[in-house]
């Protein structure tokens, strides 16, 4: 009997697969499986594997105990108790359905295997050819003009010209305090626009941090490299304003 299991457990995708194998081996009718026979063989197969020191997956053990239980239930006479115990005929029907369904997918997998093999005979290029961009127009002259003249405009309308070489933090704090007070809520980039030099940008950042520490303003950045929203928090002054 153990010769039935002429292949190792590794060759089975799971307990369902092993069951199907046993059904085919015994040339049984899948729609009316003799539970006693099949559970005996199943348990024997699992024992065999354990003897061979193969680590038997929990799924196989579960199926084995389920089959033994089902077999024992079927041997017992029907005692009429309904509900608390399983109806063995019903259980057998459900198991049959599962087996039929599984064996359908097992066969479909074979069909797919054939399709895979056939389709694999066609060769195709592994990557799409893209036409190099030199042959295409990518930017237009207007965008270039726009970038240039806008940057010129930006330089012309600089609102503050800091004459002295050293920008004073105190001055910048006053400036930012005023701006935020007036607008209540604005972006960090709005403050950037008022800066005349890189130095002033750095000092403005320090000023914002100082005003945050004093709880005059609050700065929130929703995402990394995102816009920083600066909001007025100095409530007592805002009430008056």
């Amino acid at each position, binding site marked *: 009997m153990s010769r039935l299991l002429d292949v190792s457990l590794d060759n089975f*995708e*799971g*307990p*369902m*697969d092993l069951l199907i194998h046993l059904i085919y081996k015994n040339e049984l009718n899948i729609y009316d499986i003799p539970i006693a026979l099949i559970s005996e063989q199943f348990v024997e197969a699992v024992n065999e594997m354990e003897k061979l020191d193969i680590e038997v*997956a929990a*799924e196989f053990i579960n*199926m084995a105990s389920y089959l033994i239980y089902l077999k024992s239930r079927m041997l017992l006479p029907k005692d009429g108790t309904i509900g608390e115990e399983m109806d063995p005929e019903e259980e057998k029907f459900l198991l049959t359905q*599962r087996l039929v*369904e*599984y064996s*359908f*997918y*097992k*066969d*479909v*997998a*074979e*069909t*797919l*295997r054939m*399709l*895979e*093999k*056939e*389709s*694999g*005979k*066609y*060769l*195709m*290029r*592994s*990557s*799409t*050819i*893209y*036409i190099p961009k030199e042959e295409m127009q990518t930017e237009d002259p207007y965008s270039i003009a726009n970038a240039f003249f806008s940057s010129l405009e930006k330089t012309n309308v600089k609102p503050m010209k800091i004459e002295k070489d050293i920008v004073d933090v105190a001055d910048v704090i006053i400036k930012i305090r005023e701006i935020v007070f007036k607008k209540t809520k604005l972006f960090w980039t709005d403050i950037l626009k008022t800066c005349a030099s890189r130095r002033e940008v750095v000092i403005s950042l320090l000023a914002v941090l100082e005003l945050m520490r004093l709880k005059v303003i609050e700065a929130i950045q929703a995402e990394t490299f995102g816009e920083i929203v600066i909001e007025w928090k100095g409530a007592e002054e805002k009430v008056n304003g």
Partner: protein
Amino acid sequence: MDKEQKIFYTSLFLSCTPLDKKFFRKIFDPINLENRLLSYVESFNTLGLGMKIRMVSGGYQMVTDKDLLDELAPYFGEKTEALSRASMETSAIIAYKQPITRLEIDEIRGVNSSGTVRYLLEKNLIKVTGRKDVPGRPLLYSTTKYFLEYMGINDISELPTFREWQELKTK
């Protein structure tokens, strides 16, 4: 040969993936388009250049003839390993029952399929298509367009139905 026909051929030449009818409807006059495309396919394939246009996953794809495989494979064949039995079984289940959760797959197969599902996702043969409206809201899986291309079929409906299979079995 008119420009439309040439653009049809060159598009298929440039693209490595199948181009579907939707793509051509966008760039060509859609009236009676399918018939025109079919005639283009036919006249291309009768040229017998060694490559041909095949219809797959609901689109068109330029491929080489099967009988040149042995000659071309050493130089251009990408060695793709065939799918394992577990992958085949799992993708078969997903193909028929999509969208389906992993637990439902496990129930049919009688084993845990998480590794196989992950592998199929990586291979772009299946994709996540939402969540099931049950407690835990598990992910739902479906097969991809690439699955059809990989199997060389146009549509899942080309696979045998359960009824057809049963009839064959009981004969």
